């Protein structure tokens, strides 16, 4: 298909991700398949094979190998894209942590899928949040359009000389990866103006510029120097993101803040959410508003660096806030909740009630009734314990399933 002007197509989140890589003029894709990411690598493989994309697609032998190849290629001066999910992220974790420290720009997509054990397919965010502390930057998408747009923005951020870091774009498996939505494909020439072909800002491997990279460092002070550099580079993104998002908005008409404030202005109740389930949250907000309840939603898009200041500001004067974590750190609770606490703690006008909610694990739906129970809990003193979105209905279904297999209800492990 020739791209001469903006076109709208019905695309799955996976196809939108592949289009993002194609429009970005990616040179190199090392790949390894995993459900629900496969459609991305299959699409890119086809495009390299039939000449729509120019460069190389390499089938790797594991995610660990894939991320290593991705990092080394970026260090050798090409624009790199790759994608994974869930167990693949965990298998590649050592490589991801390593290449983040190499300070190489590249973009990877994670299609969220809950982690084993038990092994499953539908999404939650324990996979992507296992990368929370790697220094890889993270953008979380709610829609297929955001997937594509964030990939283009991600390259600008990753390749900025003040950053030089991998950027991850997250989308939910199934809810987004396999859901078709109308997506505007920006004109390729316009994309090229926003994102010119890759010109590395650091020296890259080639014969005329020999160098040693990622050498061993001894002494805590010397080690700290590099780690603090990494932190400062990630912090730079708070400013750079704003600039990139502004330019993207002016060129393509879609403006993305680090967070989205959905009907927040006079909101009394606020749901803090991210990714595709934010759409469910927005629907709940609309419904509650129709019934005279002043609800709003704060959507987290830029997760790393964490925009504390922006979040703190957005939550000023909002009296009842529920942080809905679609993840679980057993023995602690929700992973994002303490980060939101940190963002509001020092503020004079911070929320009165900050409730931790854990829901959507393994793709468990979050329905209207769940939002109502959140409101009820917010009206009381929510306390420190998280509210689990797991009710009698879930338990009944679980028991029914076990009864089919011949277990009695009494035998259930409590």
């Amino acid at each position, binding site marked *: 298909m020739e791209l001469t002007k903006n076109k709208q197509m019905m695309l799955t989140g996976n196809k939108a991700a592949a289009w993002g890589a194609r429009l970005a003029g990616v040179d190199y894709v090392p790949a390894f398949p995993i459900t629900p990411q496969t459609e991305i690598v299959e699409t890119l493989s086809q495009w390299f094979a039939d000449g729509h994309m120019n460069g*190389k697609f390499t089938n790797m032998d594991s995610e*660990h190998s894939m991320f290593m190849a991705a990092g080394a290629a970026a260090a050798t001066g090409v624009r790199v894209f790759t994608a994974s999910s869930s167990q693949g992220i965990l298998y590649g974790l050592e490589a991801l942590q390593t290449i983040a420290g190499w300070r190489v720009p590249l973009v990877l997509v994670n299609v969220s899928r809950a982690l084993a054990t038990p092994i499953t397919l539908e999404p939650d965010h324990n996979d992507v949040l296992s990368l929370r502390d790697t220094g890889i930057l993270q953008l979380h998408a709610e829609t297929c359009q955001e997937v594509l747009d964030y990939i283009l923005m991600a390259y600008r951020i990753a390749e900025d000389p003040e950053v030089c870091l991998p950027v991850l774009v997250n989308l939910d498996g199934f809810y987004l990866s396999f859901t078709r939505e109308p997506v505007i494909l920006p004109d390729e020439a316009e994309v090229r103006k926003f994102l010119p072909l890759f010109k590395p800002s650091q020296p890259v491997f080639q014969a005329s510029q020999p160098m040693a990279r990622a050498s061993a460092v001894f002494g805590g002070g010397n080690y700290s120097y590099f780690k603090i550099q990494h932190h400062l580079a990630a912090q730079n993104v708070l400013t750079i993101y704003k600039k990139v998002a502004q330019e993207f908005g002016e060129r393509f008409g879609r403006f993305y803040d680090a967070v989205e404030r959905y009907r927040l202005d006079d909101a009394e109740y606020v749901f803090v959410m991210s990714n595709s389930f934010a759409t469910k949250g927005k629907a709940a907000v609309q419904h509650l508003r129709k019934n005279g309840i002043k609800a709003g939603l704060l959507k987290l898009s830029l997760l790393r660096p964490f925009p504390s200041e922006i979040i703190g500001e957005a939550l000023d004067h909002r009296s009842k806030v529920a942080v809905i974590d679609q993840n679980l750190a057993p023995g602690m609770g929700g992973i994002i909740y303490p980060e939101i606490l940190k963002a509001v703690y020092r503020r004079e006008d911070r929320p009165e009630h900050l409730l931790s909610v854990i829901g959507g694990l393994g793709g468990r739906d979050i329905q209207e009734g769940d939002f109502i129970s959140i409101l009820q809990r917010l009206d009381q003193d929510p306390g420190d314990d998280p509210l689990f979105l797991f009710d009698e209905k879930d338990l009944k279904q679980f028991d029914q399933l076990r009864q089919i297999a011949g277990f009695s209800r009494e035998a259930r492990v409590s």
Partner: protein
Amino acid sequence: MTASILDSVEESKYKKVTDLNPQEEIAPGSALCAGCGGLEGMRLAMKVLGEDTLICNAAGCFTLISVYPFTPLKGSWLYTSMSGPVPAAQGARDALDIRMAKHGLDQKENMQVMVVAGDGATYDMGLSPTSAAIHRNLDFIYFCYDNEAYGNTGFQQSGSSPLGSYTMTSPSTLDHPAGSERSKKDLFGIWMAHNPPYLATVSPREPIDLSNKFKKAKDMKGPRLFICLSPCPTGWGFDPKETHLIAKLAVDTGIFPIKEFVNGKVIHTKRPRKRLPVEKYLERQKRFKHLFEPERRDDIIAQIQNNVDTYWEQYDE
């Protein structure tokens, strides 16, 4: 090949030590142990390969070759992780190819991409990525410095630790007198099963043989794989000045066969005429001391000898 080309290949071969490149590609003064056989092997290899080389290094002893902000190499270096150097070589190779084909990078900027890894990373954790890279026909050189244990962590057992050797995790006890109870994995055989264009074993004690093998491999394409027996004074327990003697005894006893695999055939390039008994090699190293003291373990020594004899019987003329 015509006779004249064969002649010129023969002509260009190194015949004596003074034929070798006098230039050093690795400066002295790294943090590696004195008498490291692996470093000597790599030093000789780099004399042939030259500075337009990117080394992707695995976690191991050679991590200490480049400690920030120093490097003894004229060429390039990328530290990866234990099982990371081969896929890193893939990424770098692919990137150079893309830049030359798509972005007009001058051919002069091309580099030989080379993996350097110890036996732990090679025989164990890195085996799967290497198998995949050979299968993909990755154009690279693999240099395994084989000191037959996890050396950098203080000498623990690896898939390369030979029968009867003591390591920190395979001690010799009353119940387990041999220490390491299994023979080393046949890495040469494993790699050979992938049918790479070139595969060889080399020894720092055979510099002419080593240099000729790297010279041959340098101009070939695809995976070119080297196993370099790397006597390790620290782990094996001998005086650093004896590295060459130990390396020589490994060859002369037939314990370490010097060979290559090319065009579907295995050729022994340095065949010991009359093999010395294995104990000549074993008795000089602390890691085999328990085979001689407090009492001589003729059973284990005989088993080691038998393994060597069985190997060579396959190739008896």
